[in-house]
């Protein structure tokens, strides 16, 4: 089940190069991406309407795509421009085209009703392009799990103490109680931890010595995009609604989950930091550490998906699941509303 009237990340922009057809799968649909002569990207249904050969096995012809089986050709709107050997082009010979937009180095595809596509609804990344902020350019990976296990994970600061013992976690992450805020566009789970040791992953980058006040802010917005904020300030200067200390360490992690299908998720991420904007060494160190931590998540979530799909006894929901389950419930309601709307429109 997916929310279709939404923007999903389909690829890094660098993955779609001139002259090459790039097949991707989102929400169970096969899509082919390619660059037009002006450098912008087009997204078409990746199946010729004749015998359903993926168009990505064909060739780019100018701004059009030619099928590799019998040469049927489609422009970037999905309209068939050529059927070799036919007197007339059938009106029904067309493929679906998807609204697509390039932002933050990512390609965003609108998977719902094209008439509703609105670029202002693409996830907002604060400070992007701000010269005083650095970017830890991220990567992507495929997880063998349903995307909702990822949204669970990103609304669950408590897993950090067990899954990421070597990196983000420290003893304090077990203790402090979690707050859950259900908003109009998603759910946030957060907590301030006061006067704790900084986690080893962040400690070398803090501008101050000694203990810290640390905020974990885990926010997932519909359909499946997350911002995780790590805030560190000198001990006893932090807390909700207090101005941030001038030595504050801020790192915003952006996480975009695209359901490939019900059993696989493509995960894209990058991070924004409020220090050393041009330090490539720091960027790559962070990128490497984050990759390592996410591999820890992948191992767990792949196994969780398998375990939950084949459970022999019931599973439990605990207090720590309040945020994740509220998110799931509200997303399900949105999906249901969208489906009803679709039925009503037919």
């Amino acid at each position, binding site marked *: 089940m997916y929310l279709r009237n939404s923007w999903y990340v389909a690829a890094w922009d660098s993955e779609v190069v001139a002259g090459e057809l790039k097949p991707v799968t989102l929400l169970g649909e096969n899509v082919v991406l390619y660059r037009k002569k002006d450098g912008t990207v087009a997204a078409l249904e990746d199946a010729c309407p004749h015998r359903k050969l993926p168009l990505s096995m064909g060739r780019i012809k100018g701004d059009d795509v030619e099928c590799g089986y019998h040469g049927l050709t489609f422009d970037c709107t999905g309209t068939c421009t050529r059927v070799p050997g036919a007197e007339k082009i059938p009106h029904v010979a067309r493929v679906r085209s998807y609204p697509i937009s390039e932002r933050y180095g990512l390609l965003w595809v609108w998977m719902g009703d094209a008439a509703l596509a609105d670029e202002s609804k693409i996830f907002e990344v604060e400070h992007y392009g701000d010269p005083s902020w650095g970017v830890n350019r991220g990567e992507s990976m495929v997880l063998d799990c349903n995307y909702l296990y990822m949204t669970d994970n990103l609304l669950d600061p408590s897993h950090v103490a067990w899954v990421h013992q070597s990196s983000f976690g420290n003893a304090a992450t077990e203790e402090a109680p979690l707050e859950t805020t259900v908003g109009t566009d998603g759910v946030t789970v957060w907590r301030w931890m006061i006067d704790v040791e900084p986690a080893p992953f962040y400690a070398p980058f803090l501008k101050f010595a000694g203990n810290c006040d640390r905020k974990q802010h885990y926010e997932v917005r519909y359909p499946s995009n997350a911002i995780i904020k790590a805030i560190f300030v000198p001990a006893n200067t932090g807390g909700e609604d207090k101005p941030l200390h001038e030595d504050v360490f801020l790192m915003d992690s952006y996480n975009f989950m695209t359901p490939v299908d019900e059993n696989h998720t493509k995960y894209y991420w990058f991070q924004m930091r409020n220090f050393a904007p041009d330090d490539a060494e720091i960027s790559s160190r962070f990128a490497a550490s984050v990759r390592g931590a996410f591999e820890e998540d992948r191992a767990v979530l792949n196994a969780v998906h398998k375990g939950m799909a084949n459970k022999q006894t019931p599973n439990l929901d605990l*207090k720590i699941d309040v945020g994740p389950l509220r998110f799931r419930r509200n997303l399900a309601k949105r999906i249901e509303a969208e489906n009803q709307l679709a039925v009503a429109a037919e």
Partner: protein
Amino acid sequence: MQPKGGFRDLVVVDKVRESETITSFYLKPADPDGWRPFEPGQFLVFRLPLPDETSLLRNYSVSSSPKAEGLYRISVKREAAREAGQPDGLGSLHLHDRTGIGAVLKAEGPRGGFVLDRGSDRPVVLLSGGVGLTPMVSMLHDLAGSDRRAIFIHACDNGEVHALRDEVAELVAANPNLSAHIRYRFPSEADRAEARHDSEGVVTRELLQSLLPLDDYDFYLCGPPPFMQSVFTIIRGLGVDKSRIAYEFFGPATVLDRAETEAPSPAPAPEAPRETAEGAPVIEFRKSGITVPWTDGAESILSFAEDQGLSPAFSCRAGICSTCKTALLEGDADYFEEPLDDLEDGEILICCSRPKTSLVLDL
């Protein structure tokens, strides 16, 4: 330090037959440091094993003096089935028939808000019916030696079933501030011959008027539902403010339903008090036979149930997993966390709710 809550072992150090139907058990903590003091009126929660290897929870008031540190006494009525085909009272049978000196009982507590208000200096009226005298006797012990006036009015069928009679008589004889009035509904020839009682009949308005000079009293009521209903109505009719009446029901809660049709009611069938004198809602755990006033400040109905020694199923304690879903037989509750799943009428999640009115729960 000894943890305050939780079940611990109490050893039966003596077992005394008090009447035809009531037997006392004297209990000492197995762990010599495990003594937990109680207030007069409080009860212990017992987890009693059943022959089929399940267990059940029963509350029994402590009938001994709070001043006798290290020793609890409970006085338990053997509850035989009232009708053919109905089971006997399982808890009381276990104690009467299968629990001897040296036996170990699992008990939790002391608990309960039905306690003598030691901060008040008003004279005290202790009104009990049948086995409801047990907390009253504990209160009498507590009042002995003080100068606070107290009258103990006790109603039961006859001398055969009248427990702790000599103990009360000795207390009254030794303490000028205490008095007692014993009333039998069906006195025997022997009762009359030995003057075991002071009057005959049920508790009436006239009796209370004759015993209680005009004054501002603290009333304590304990007994089976028909007794409670009629006495509550009488003393309210005498103009006693609710805030002066504390009470506790005794007996299996199912009796509550039958009471109105079965028991010969000495007064027009009154409504059971549906809240305490202080206006707190009353929570009835029907399956468990526990009826207790809500404790202000209790986190949730679930944690309140646990405070009474019950163990309802739960998982999240945050309204999302529905594990604690329970049938709500009567009353209304408020949610402090909205349940994740929609509930049917008559269902309640007890982990994230508190009573709005008095409740009857299928627990």
